């Protein structure tokens, strides 16, 4: 299958943003037209399988969360009980297990049964969805391609929680010595989607996953056709202590008339979030005594 044909992604994205901004905005009736849930189905319209998700949750994720990485969660109360929200996390480490850990933290809620958790949808990059088998599993586990239109539907229409890693693909191949230094946010359009849906943005600082899934070297110069770049990492995560800190939500409802059209504003917001995350990351790294024991 030839994959070298001209991609019109940039133009396509622009049109999506422009059109959706102009035409769809104010059409809340469309939300009422969302398809209903068919009770007999095991899959959602996005392709997530309840069965596979439950299985992974009960086995691998539970093991990692409770015993292997001993995840410690702060600030889970910032997750709203209803309504959409965009969670923005620092990309750390290979294999997107950190996404699974955050999803599990959100699903558990504040614990003790007082606040029931919510389902978190993870926006994934195209690099993974194209790998045979892996893309299929990621979709079954609740991954959705990080496309502005997908985010609009999830955040605005379905009022869901979505996790994005706006640093982009490059961030997970950064070598170990660059750990916990955030890159410039590449995927500004994902923040714009949140601005358009007028949902709050919740930054999530993750410490520990860089050591749990380190990258030793990246062979991106080879430009392999399928994976893009080969990263030398580990096949399994190491038992580093992982800490998650959910930060105070940043409201996007009071940014003006049509803030998503203003890319400069989005860049400013991105810088603000990045600064906030970086500050918290340094604070958390400085406070921990041991990488493995916390």
């Amino acid at each position, binding site marked *: 299958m030839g994959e070298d044909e001209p991609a019109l992604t940039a133009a396509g994205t622009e049109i999506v943003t422009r*059109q959706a901004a102009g035409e769809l905005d104010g059409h809340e009736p*469309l939300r009422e037209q969302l398809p209903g849930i068919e009770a007999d189905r095991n899959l959602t319209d996005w392709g997530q399988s309840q069965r596979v998700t439950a299985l992974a949750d009960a086995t691998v994720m539970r093991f990692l969360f409770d015993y292997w990485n001993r995840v410690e969660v702060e600030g889970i109360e910032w997750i709203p009980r209803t309504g959409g929200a965009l969670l923005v996390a620092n990309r750390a480490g290979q294999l997107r297990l950190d996404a699974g850990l955050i999803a599990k933290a959100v699903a558990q809620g504040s614990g003790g049964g007082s606040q029931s958790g919510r389902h978190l949808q993870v926006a994934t990059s195209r690099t993974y969805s194209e790998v045979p088998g892996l893309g299929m599993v990621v979709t079954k586990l609740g991954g959705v391609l990080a496309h502005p239109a997908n985010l609009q539907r999830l955040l605005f229409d379905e009022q869901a929680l979505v996790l994005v890693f706006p640093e982009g693909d490059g961030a997970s191949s950064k070598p170990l010595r660059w750990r916990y230094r955030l890159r410039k946010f590449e995927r500004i359009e994902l923040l714009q989607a949140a601005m358009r849906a007028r949902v709050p943005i919740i930054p999530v600082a993750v410490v520990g996953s860089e050591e749990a899934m380190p990258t030793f070297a990246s062979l991106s110069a080879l430009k392999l056709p399928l994976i893009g770049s080969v990263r030398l990492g580990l096949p399994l995560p190491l038992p580093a202590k992982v800490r998650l800190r959910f930060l105070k939500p940043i409201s996007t409802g009071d940014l003006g008339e049509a803030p998503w059209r203003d890319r400069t504003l989005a860049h400013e917001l991105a810088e603000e979030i990045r600064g906030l995350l970086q500050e918290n990351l340094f604070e958390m790294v400085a406070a921990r005594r041991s990488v493995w024991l916390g």
Partner: protein
Amino acid sequence: MSTSGPISSGGHPTPRSRRVLITGLSSQWGGRVAQLLEQDEAIDVLVGVDTADPRHELERTEFVRVGSDDSLLRRIIRAAAIDTILDTRLLPDGFADANVGKELAGVDATRSLLAACGGEDSPVRKFVFKSSADYYGAGKDDPSFFSEEMMRTRMPRTALEWDVALGEAAVNEFAADNPGLTVTTLRCTTAVGSDLRSPHLALLALPMVPSILGFDPRWQFVHEDDVLGAMAYAVQHTLPGAYNVAGDGVLALSEIVSLLGKAPLPVLPPWGSVFASRQLRRFGLPMPVELVRDLRHGRGLDNRRLKSAGYRFRYTSREAVLRLRAHHRLQPLLGSGDDSYRYEREVEEFLRWSPSVRPALEPGAEAPSGEGRKTAAPISAYDELTVAELLAVIGSLEATQMRELRAHEAAGPRRKAVLEALDQQLMRRGG
């Protein structure tokens, strides 16, 4: 009945369509939609054009054999004062309708039709264009749900994709040139129905369904009744712009295969699957490039615009697949009823125009359509027959008898297999 939906961008409510011209009358879509529109009393005149004889039994639709000659079409449109055009020709269900022949009408036919209905003194007020979800293509950068304003993320590559893209471009240009007209584009996703033939359906009809190793694409379907319903709805209402026609719900291929009670067969390799699909073609399995791409990426459509314009889908994607399963199971019992009707020009003309023909009682007019009322059994000893015996008898009945039987069954025992078999037979005879 709301003439202007919530999204009526710049469209003045067009007066009710009374004189309709249908292109592609001999195709599955053209013939069936003509049968549907014949039941609408508000429509005075129905004219169908095509190059081949109609394959559906039509009561009052007039058939004119004409190709895509714009001067002839123009004369027909002016002479009959046609106010609404329904263009069904472009790619019946994605690919050529196997019965008509492999030739696609293509974009030239659309262009000449548009030329024929343009002009200062044209009586045409509405143009309904049946397009296809191939407009969006299928690729790895695609959003999970395409809405109408979005474009494909990659250049069209196959002849079929170019036809859809250029056809829509020509229609859009026509709409921009004629702001007084209501121009509707219906982008239909893969349709499911008992009489439809398409590579997707051929694939799903196999005992094991080939797929690409490591991929489980999301597919969406629409039942053929909903495609017809949406076309009729567009004729009867004012819907300016493009609308996706797709049932609610997007299914994974694995889910579809298990709903059909079959097993997946991941024989196509993840790399070079187009090449491998060519080898499958030698075994008589049509595997066009578009289908292989669908097997890899899949596609979902956002159907909310058509729903908020007032159309109610009868079937979800899942229900359409379940209907397909019933069809697969009944097919060996019913055989193919393809040659039940043959068009004879002289007979049709006699029946329509001869003064000797007396207006008989409409057979459908008295048929009991209301459910829930107990009727006398139309066949003697009906209630003693088993399902299998009934299924054997059904094929030999007259249409009126079948309608009675349907009502009786619906009022009484409500056996699903019997009802489905009756529906299918009635549909095939144009009930």
